């Protein structure tokens, strides 16, 4: 991999990350925010892969495995939380969560 394609690939990673970040800021739905977090994570993983390929070392791919595990765990926990919240609050918008009031959440679910 030459220097030019490295720059292109890193640019793709940056674009992916910015898309994820912009989506996270712009979207109000918690599910989409979680999706955007995944995109950002993938952007970071992509950057690792590229760096590993450029210098011919295996650590880049090892890091990506770690990232995948982290992302899987995050999705498992995050999705569970979001589903639980949207069930009890009957809304899955992040703005509604600004007062983390246990009573409100419980009564909203009732």
């Amino acid at each position, binding site marked *: 991999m030459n220097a030019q394609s490295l720059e292109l690939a890193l640019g793709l990673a940056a674009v992916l990350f910015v898309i994820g*970040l912009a989506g*996270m*800021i712009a979207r*109000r739905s918690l599910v989409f925010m979680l999706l955007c977090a995944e995109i950002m994570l993938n952007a970071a993983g992509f950057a690792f892969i590229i760096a590993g390929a450029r210098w011919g070392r295996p650590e880049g791919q090892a890091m990506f495995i770690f990232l995948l595990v982290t992302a899987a765990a995050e999705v498992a926990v995050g999705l569970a939380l979001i589903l639980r919240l949207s069930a009890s609050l009957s809304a899955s918008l992040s*703005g509604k*969560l*600004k*007062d*983390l009031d246990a009573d409100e959440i419980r009564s909203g679910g009732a």
Partner: protein
Amino acid sequence: MELIWLVPALPLAGFVLLAFGRSMRGRTAGIVGSLTVGLSAVSACIVAWLFASTGPPGTAVYATSLWPWLELGSASPAIAFSVDALSVTMILVVTIVGFLIHLFSIEHMAGEEGYHRFFAYMNLFVAFMLILVLADNFLLLYLGWEGVGLCSFLLIGFWYRDRANGDAARKAFIVTRIGDVALLLGILMLAADLGSLGIGEASRRAAAAWAPGSGMAVLAAALILGGALGKSAQLPLHTWLPDAMAGPSPVSALIHAATMVTAGVYLVARSNVFFSLAPQVMTAVAILGAATLLVAGASAIAQRDFKRILAYSTMSQIGYMFLALGVAAWTGAVFHLATHALFKSLLFLAAGAIINALGHERDVFAMGGLAKKMPLLFWTFLAGAFGLTALPPVTAGLASKDAIIARLWYVGGDARILWWAAMAGVLLTSLYTFRMLFLVFAGESRGAAENGGSVGLHAGPHGAGHDGHGGSGIGAATAIPLIVLSLLCLVGGLLDFPRFLGGSPFFGSFLGGALPRSADEGGSGLQEALLSLGPLLLTLAGIPIAWLMARRALEREAEPVGKRSSRLAAFVRGGFGFDRLYAFLFVGPILRLAGRGVDAVNLASEGLRGFAMRASRLIRSSQDGRPRRYLAVLAVGAAILLAAVFL
């Protein structure tokens, strides 16, 4: 002499005992309180005897340092007492008069709610007063000074359930506090400029360092004078004393006649070196004394309240003492202080007994005809009144007041006007004293029923069902102090009797050890006799006028309300409108300022609070719990950081 610490320690121990021994029943508290002051009086007498018997009378100074108090660089005041002729005189007056008043109170205050509290405060007062007069340095003196002020406040407001009494107590505290601040400033100034707080040491250094009439000397003397004016109820800080009569009569006798109010006289005499260095301030002392003498004397003539007459009389007599101080007659002032303590406390105690016997009736127009009903009180009161007006055969006032008046004559020059003021004061004294005597004791009874029938000016708690009340039921504890004080008044003046009458200036030469003797320019015996004759004749001339005044006042009293008193009389009765003036100048503006919700004093702290509130609101808005905004801020911050690093 080393046992001098016992003198203030005994009343202090009595206070502690009374403050923590709440289980004492009946009159035990009174007996404990009197006993400690009595023992203190005994030890004071022993100290005085030891002092007089060692060396030439009155020249030595004994200083005992008990323990170091504060370490303030070069000036490190200790808890130290010094015994000289002046302090010996003062401790004798305070303990003996104090003991008699305590003894009187055992019966007088019996049945009052707070009997216990009364004696605790009284003992504490005596202890502080003794610390004041024995103090070796200005700081310890100031401790005693504030202590007596505190006890005065507590005892004026003794019947605190009545709001007026609490107001009177606060007024006394605040007005004297104005003077106290001046005194504290003066003491700090002395410490800063002379590097010593010791009274003797500071005096020596001042005499060496300051030129007579120099700015520092004048400032120091003026500040000390400020304190003395407040405590001694002299113009212009005198307005608290008439209201202080809200307290029980023994309090008025002890604190507001015999001891605390004369502390100002003691202070000026004690710091005589500073005053001698500031002739301008000395003139001010004399003029203020003369003004108070006349204003208070005139106010006393128009009063209706028995105790207020005596209060104005006290102010007027202290005016005499300040007059004497102002012309450097130090010993004369202290002698009048001592005799005044005798006859004025006697007057207050007798008045208190009468007021109690009439069921807390304090209006002299409601009394009358008491000479026959209460012969003991009449004769003892008469002894006090003769002392007050300086009439023979009572020697107490006669010797001391005539000495001051004669001294004023010898000063001569422009000061002759002070002599005229003093003579006018003699006439005023005679007028108000005999007006009071005629109204209270002469003629027929006018309304005030005996044995607590009527509701008096003071509707305080009555001691129900005990023998202390009632004209005929005066017990031994009431009678003995009155009789002893009367006898002391009779002979007290002999300590320093005019030479032309065969007396000897024992007291003056005794005090000469502690205070500079006033230059004895005394003329011939004949001249002195003539000078003493003047006041005597004036006093006698006042008696028939007082009789006419009393009769006219009674006639006017019989007329329908509304016609009763002229505007002038009301003005004089109100103490020449000082209260109204101060209310207009000081109290009103301050209340208005506070009432409008703009408290200038609070402005700084309010501003600080407002700033904290606004700042916290600002920061709080960033923590609103919206993850999207957090994220946006995070992204912007990261972008800025990246830009800063790479560009």
